[in-house]
């Protein structure tokens, strides 16, 4: 196993003593097969215990270790050091306030996620002893891609619309609303509509598409949003037809 010295330039912010963030450089002896998260763990374990960042699973499942690596939103567990030069700049995800060091404040996203009712709203609740709600493979396929979201927030960090308009519900929450709308067991589309199809929902998206490019799980939130725009526009137009809602 070969070793390589990597310079990690990490943005630090310690709210109890700093007025603004600053870069601190750590020179880390790294193994060739390491990811950025391994290098950060080395710093934490061997060099500076005060460094704060989130992580948990180390295998692209928990969605905790999102950060900007050389300016690009990435999961630190999926960013292999072999793909980088010897100097790597690490910052907390952009478009979010910094809580401490690489830890961002996620409250805004959590509220927005709740607002789209990200759970199955069945036509009729049935008791557990009546068994599962059955679904065909084709019905599963319709939404499975959107259910892969791990709430890592890379998409929000890449989205210029969210950066400029913080009321925007944003990519992941809208993709998750779509995920439940597309689920054959769910009838909650109209209950989500007032948030999803609002000015701050899908219509605030100008389809830059950066969210889908950075998504580590190929959820394609940009695609989901455009599809919802289509169904929502059809809803609007058909509401003028005889028997429509209008």
């Amino acid at each position, binding site marked *: 196993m070969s070793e390589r010295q990597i310079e990690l330039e990490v943005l630090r912010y310690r709210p109890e003593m700093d007025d603004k963030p600053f870069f601190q450089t750590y020179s880390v002896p790294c193994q060739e097969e390491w990811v950025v998260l391994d290098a950060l763990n080395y710093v934490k374990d061997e060099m500076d215990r005060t460094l704060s960042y989130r992580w948990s699973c180390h295998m692209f499942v928990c969605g905790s270790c999102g950060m900007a690596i050389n300016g690009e939103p990435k999961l630190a567990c999926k960013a292999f050091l072999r793909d980088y030069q010897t100097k790597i700049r690490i910052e907390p995800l952009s478009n979010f*306030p910094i809580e401490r060091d690489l830890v961002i404040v996620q409250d805004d996203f959590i509220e927005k996620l709740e607002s789209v009712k990200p759970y199955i709203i069945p036509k009729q609740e049935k008791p557990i002893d009546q068994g599962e709600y059955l679904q065909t493979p*084709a019905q599963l396929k319709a939404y499975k891609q959107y259910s892969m979201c791990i709430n890592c927030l890379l998409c929000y960090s890449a989205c210029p619309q969210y950066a400029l308009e913080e009321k925007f519900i944003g990519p992941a929450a809208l993709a998750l609303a779509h995920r439940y709308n597309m689920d054959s067991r769910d009838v909650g589309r109209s209950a989500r509509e007032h948030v999803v199809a609002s000015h701050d929902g899908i219509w605030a998206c100008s389809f830059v598409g950066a969210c889908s490019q950075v998504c580590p799980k190929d959820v394609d939130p940009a695609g989901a949003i455009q599809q919802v725009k289509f169904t929502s526009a059809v809803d609007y137009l058909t509401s003028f037809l005889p028997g429509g809602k209008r």
Partner: protein
Amino acid sequence: MSRKPYHREVSKTTWFLKQSRYQHYMLHEISSVFVAIYVGVLIVGLFRLAQGPEAWSGWLAAVTSPIGVIFHILVFIFSIIHTTSWFKAVPQAMRIQRGEEIVPGNLIIGAHYGVWAVVSVVVLLVAGVA
């Protein structure tokens, strides 16, 4: 301990300079302006045609003048940018499921190019160019 989150400002005017993918987006958006202007030019041409032969030949002279030709080349380039960037994005907005499979994006994009080619040939035939 009380919290003191640090907010980073984003420039409202220069945000798109930050990343090449934002610049591509801007290029795509700006290309629509050229398409819109060209639609305007064609509509003016139609009005000129309705006003009689003199007005029409005046319009024709304007669009075939050196400046008119440069303008056409510019519009052509931006139209290509506009069309190809939209075609590239179509499979995202148009997700077609057949049974348990999603129709591959390249097929959808290919179909768009096919229709584009056919329509272009028809237009050229109707115009008597081809």
